[in-house]
C-alpha cells in the first residue's frame, strides 16, 4: 500500500506538488515492496493496493473531492489542536501513527515533505530516498548532483519512505471515486512540540522581488559579463513589470543577491514567460524554471541547453539583443 502525505494550501485545496506525488504513487504500483499487502497500523479494511492520503489539519470538501479525482481511496484525516501549528516532530509522529508497516510512505519533495518524511523514516526505522523521479522493477531512480545525474537504488525493509521530485510527473486525474475519510483520536507528545512554529510572518515571506509571483521573469546569467552588466535586463524587467531572476553563478560571483537566484537551490518559478539572457542552462537552473509556460532564450550559443530547451530563441549578444528589444518596446509605445 502506498500512503501519500498530502499538503493543502491556505484555501484548503490540494497543492500541485502533492497532486504530482499522488499521481506518481498511483501510476507506480511497483512501489509496493511487499506485493500489495495492505494494513495500516490502526485501520483495517481499505481497498488493497489503493493509494491512501494523509491530511493534517482542516480537511475541506474540495480537497476530498480533488483527492477522489486523483484516485485516492482512503483519506486519513489527522486533526488535533496541537497540530494546528506546524511542528515537524509532532506531524511526523501523527503520520507514523497511521502509516503502513509495509509498503511505501511518500510526500512531494517540498521542504515540508522532505522534513516530514525524514522524521517519519527515523521514527519507523525505514530507509528513505529523496527526490525520486521513477520506480520500476529494478528499484528507484532519484535526482542527485542537483539533477545533473540520477541515482539508481534499492531500499530494503518492509516500508520505504520517499519524496517525489517536483515535476517528476504531471498530475493526472482518474475515474473519480469517493474516498473514505478516517478520523483519529490522536495523542501528541509534549516533547514533539518543542520545534513548533511560534509564529509565521506572511508579508516577510512574500518575496520582495516578486520573483515567484511575477508573470514575466527576465533571467540573467554569466553572459551578462560583470556586476555592471545588468542595465539592459533591468530595463526589460521594468518594461514587463516583472522580476529579475539570476543563475547561481551570478550570485556566486556576488553580482546579485541570493534572493534573486532561480534554480534548484533558489526560487522555483512558474511565470507566463521566462526570458533567459546569457544563461547556458545548467540543470540546477533549469530545475527552477520548469514551471515557466513560455521559455525564451537569448544566447550566443545556439547549442546551449537553454536554447535547445526554449520555445523561442534569439542567437546573439544579450546586451545588444535586449537593448534592441527595449528600444522596440519603447518605439511601439510611441
Amino acid at each position, binding site marked *: 500500500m502506498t500512503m501519500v502525505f498530502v499538503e493543502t494550501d491556505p484555501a484548503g485545496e490540494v497543492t500541485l506538488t502533492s497532486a504530482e506525488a499522488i499521481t506518481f504513487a498511483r501510476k507506480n504500483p511497483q512501489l509496493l515492496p511487499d506485493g500489495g499487502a495492505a494494513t495500516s497500523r490502526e485501520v483495517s479494511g481499505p481497498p488493497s493496493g489503493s493509494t491512501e492520503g494523509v491530511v493534517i489539519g482542516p480537511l475541506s470538501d474540495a480537497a476530498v473531492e480533488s483527492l477522489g479525482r486523483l484516485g485516492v481511496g482512503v483519506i486519513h484525516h489527522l486533526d488535533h489542536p496541537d497540530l494546528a501549528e506546524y511542528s515537524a516532530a509532532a506531524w511526523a509522529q501523527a503520520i507514523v501513527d497511521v502509516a503502513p508497516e509495509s509498503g511505501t510512505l511518500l510526500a512531494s519533495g517540498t521542504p515540508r515533505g522532505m522534513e516530514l518524511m525524514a522524521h517519519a523514516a527515523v521514527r519507523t526505522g525505514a530507509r528513505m530516498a529523496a527526490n525520486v523521479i521513477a520506480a520500476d522493477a529494478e528499484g528507484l531512480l532519484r535526482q542527485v548532483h542537483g539533477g545533473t545525474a540520477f541515482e539508481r537504488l534499492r531500499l530494503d525493509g518492509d516500508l520505504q519512505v520517499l519524496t517525489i521530485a517536483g515535476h517528476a510527473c504531471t498530475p493526472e486525474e482518474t475515474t473519480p471515486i469517493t474516498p473514505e475519510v478516517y478520523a483519529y483520536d490522536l495523542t501528541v507528545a509534549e516533547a514533539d512540540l518543542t520545534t513548533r512554529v511560534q509564529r509565521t510572518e506572511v508579508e516577510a515571506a512574500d518575496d520582495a522581488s516578486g520573483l515567484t509571483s511575477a508573470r514575466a521573469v527576465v533571467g540573467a546569467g554569466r553572459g551578462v559579463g560583470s556586476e555592471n552588466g545588468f542595465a539592459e535586463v533591468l530595463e526589460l524587467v521594468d518594461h514587463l513589470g516583472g522580476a529579475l531572476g539570476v543563475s547561481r*553563478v551570478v550570485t556566486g560571483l556576488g553580482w546579485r543577491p541570493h534572493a534573486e537566484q532561480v534554480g534548484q537551490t533558489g526560487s522555483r518559478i512558474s511565470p507566463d514567460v521566462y526570458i533567459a539572457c546569457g544563461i547556458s542552462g545548467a540543470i540546477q537552473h533549469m530545475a527552477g524554471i520548469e514551471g515557466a509556460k513560455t521559455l525564451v532564450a537569448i544566447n550566443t550559443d545556439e547549442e546551449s541547453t537553454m536554447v535547445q530547451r526554449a520555445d523561442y530563441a534569439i542567437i546573439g549578444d544579450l546586451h545588444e539583443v535586449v537593448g534592441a528589444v527595449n528600444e522596440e518596446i519603447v518605439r511601439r509605445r510611441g
Partner: protein
Amino acid sequence: MNILVCIKRVPDIAGSVTLDATGTGIDESGLGHTMSSHEECAVELAIQTAAQAGGTVTVLTLGPAEAVEQLRAAVAVGANDGILVEAADPSVFAPEDIAQVIGDVIRDRAEAGQTFDLVLTGDDAADTGDFQVGIRLAYDLGYPVLTNIQTISVGGAAGGGGERGSGRIEARGIGPVGTEIFSLDLPAVVAVHEGGVDPRYPSITGRMKAKKAQVVEYDAPVPGMGSPRLRLELPEVKASSVTILGEGPEAAPALVDVLEEIGVIRP
C-alpha cells in the same frame, strides 16, 4: 555558545557531468571541490551566532583526506578549528551511517571536554541530496531538530521544552506561506537552507590562519548499513522544439511580438 557545523566536500559541478569508470560516481577529474552551498550558509550563520553569543565554531566533515581543504576553507572565513573523520570513499555510507558516525564523534569530543551547544548542518548535500543526515543525527543525539532554517539569532522568548541548559535560539525558515519563526532551547540540531545570509569570502589573513588550523582527525568506521546506491545514470537529452526568432538585434521585433501575444508588456 559552541557550535559545530557539519560540512561535506562535494564536486563543484556546473552544467553537465560524466560518469566515472565504475558507473557509481561522477568523473571528478577537472572538477574543483567545495562545500555544499547550504553548508556555506551554515558556516556563516555559525560565525555570526558565535560572534553574537560568544563561543567557538568547529567544523566537521566525513570525507577523504582532501576534505581538510573544506575544513580550512571554513576556518579561513572564521571558524576556529576542524574535525576530519577520514573515509576514503564517503559514497559508500548511508545517511544513517553518517549520522551515527558524527554522533559518535560528538560524544567522543564531549568526553575529551569539547562540547557543542548547537549543531548545524545543511538541509542536504549538493551531491547526494539525501535530506536526512541532520535529522537522523538529532535523533541519534536526542536533540530537537529544525530544518529549512535561514537565519538564527541568540535568545528569544522562553517556552516549550523546559530547561536544557545551554541557551536558546530563535530560528527563521521558509514555510509554505511565509517565514516561520521557531524558538528552542539548546542543545539542538539545525539544518540550514541557503539564502538567509551571504557567506563571506575569506580574507588573505583568514586564509593564512586556515593554513595553520588545528584539525582533530578520526578514522571513520566501516559503514554499518551502507549506501543503497546501485549506480548512477545520466539524464537523456531531450529533443529541441525551439523556434529561432533570428540572430542579433534584428530579431528584437519578433520577440516583442511574442511578448505582446503573451500579454506581459506593461502599457
